[in-house]
């Protein structure tokens, strides 16, 4: 039975993506598929070393990654479920949390998914950034602030570190303006955001708007 499904996955990957997965190459193929950031590649290397997954896991991960890239929801969910029998891994948990948030709008489920992500990779900027956003949606601004701050501190673990840092700083400034009415601190944060990402129209606009208030 397991052999049959493995053969099916291998055939699908060969036919649809023109990739041949073997016991020897599947770990390298998964790392190539994920590509970056380096911190995630280190995590996956470590995961594969510790858990010694099988070729079937490699096939399912490959198919999950491709479904995630294509944003094809039924396949993302199917491969997520099929991967559930293996030790949990950050990549699929966070992929699923993003689906819960952006596709279904299930904010509480997404929150739980990103927390699971943090358990698997503590101090991960991507999870902190998303939790900052989720707590903003939940109207819990103290927690939103906390997570955006942590995203700034850990931004180096992100795919686009400078962009994530700048966006987190911008959102911290928004909380300072809207919730705390601390315009001085907001200005400082916006300037810092622009230093991290000079081409950031929203931050420029916000600074301009604040100057008009003065």
């Amino acid at each position, binding site marked *: 039975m397991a052999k049959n499904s493995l053969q099916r996955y291998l055939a699908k990957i060969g036919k649809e993506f023109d990739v041949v997965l073997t016991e020897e190459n599947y770990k390298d193929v998964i790392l190539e598929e994920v590509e970056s950031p380096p911190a995630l590649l280190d995590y996956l290397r470590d995961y594969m070393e510790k858990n010694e997954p099988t070729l079937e896991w490699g096939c399912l991960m490959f198919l999950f990654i491709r479904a995630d890239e294509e944003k094809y929801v039924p396949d993302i969910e199917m491969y997520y479920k099929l991967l559930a029998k293996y030790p949990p891994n950050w990549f699929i948990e966070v992929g699923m949390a993003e689906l819960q948030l*952006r596709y279904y*709008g299930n904010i509480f489920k997404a929150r739980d998914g990103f927390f699971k992500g943090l358990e698997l990779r503590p101090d991960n900027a991507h999870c902190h950034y998303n939790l900052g956003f989720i707590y*903003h949606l*939940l*109207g819990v*601004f*103290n*927690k939103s602030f906390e997570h955006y701050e942590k995203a700034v501190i850990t931004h180096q673990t992100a795919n686009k570190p400078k962009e994530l840092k700048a966006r987190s700083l911008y959102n911290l400034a928004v909380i300072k303006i809207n919730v705390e009415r601390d315009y001085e601190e907001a200005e400082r944060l916006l300037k810092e955001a622009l230093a991290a990402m000079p081409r950031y129209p929203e931050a420029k606009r*916000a600074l301009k708007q604040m100057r008009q208030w003065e």
Partner: protein
Amino acid sequence: MRRGIASGDGESGTLQLFNFSFPTKESAEKILFIQIECSLNIPYSELNDRTPYEDVVLNKSATNFFNAFPIIKNAPVFKYYKRILSLSEKEFAYKSVYSKTGGVLNIFNPKIRESMDSELKTLFSRCEEEKKAIRLWKDRPSELWSNLPPKLVWASGGEIERELLLDFSQYLTRMVRRKEFDTRGDALITAIRNLREWQFQPNEICSGMAPIDALIKEREEIYERKSAFLKENHIECDFV
């Protein structure tokens, strides 16, 4: 002067209810329940300056209230009023909070169940007495209801919140007009981001206060009134 800036990130599908656009059927239906919840906390001369809530609790029946407002009996919302006004013992137990809407701040939240309440779970496991856990829990801001503590969710809103609900519905309708959304998530996120922006903008309905502050102030007043009323009538309640 309006001082507010939008956070960075997404947009939504629309459901037309009268002339409002709301992202999901559930949130459009919730408008009705919030309106009813609010109206039950407003004192009426027809009820000798009691609120419908107080009248129903005192009479242990909604008959007097429906007789005072016969128009409701013939309205399509009658069944909803009947459902909300069937105030049994359960109304005074902590679990009743999960049957409340949470008001305009929580209009886009899913149905909240006790199983989602990790704060309560933690307190139950830490406190030897259940009553003590509930006493602590009812005052703590909860992320299940936009940081409102359970006691203010249970108390519900009043006249100002009812007006603010209408104001927000119009605001959202303006903001999402002619916008198209690819997913339910996209629609919901846009609506919630608009809500979080709106709640901080000074509003004439509440004399220039931000809706968030006015809603909390009104709910605190309603909570005080409900607490005093229940104490006066020797009715035990987990929230008092």
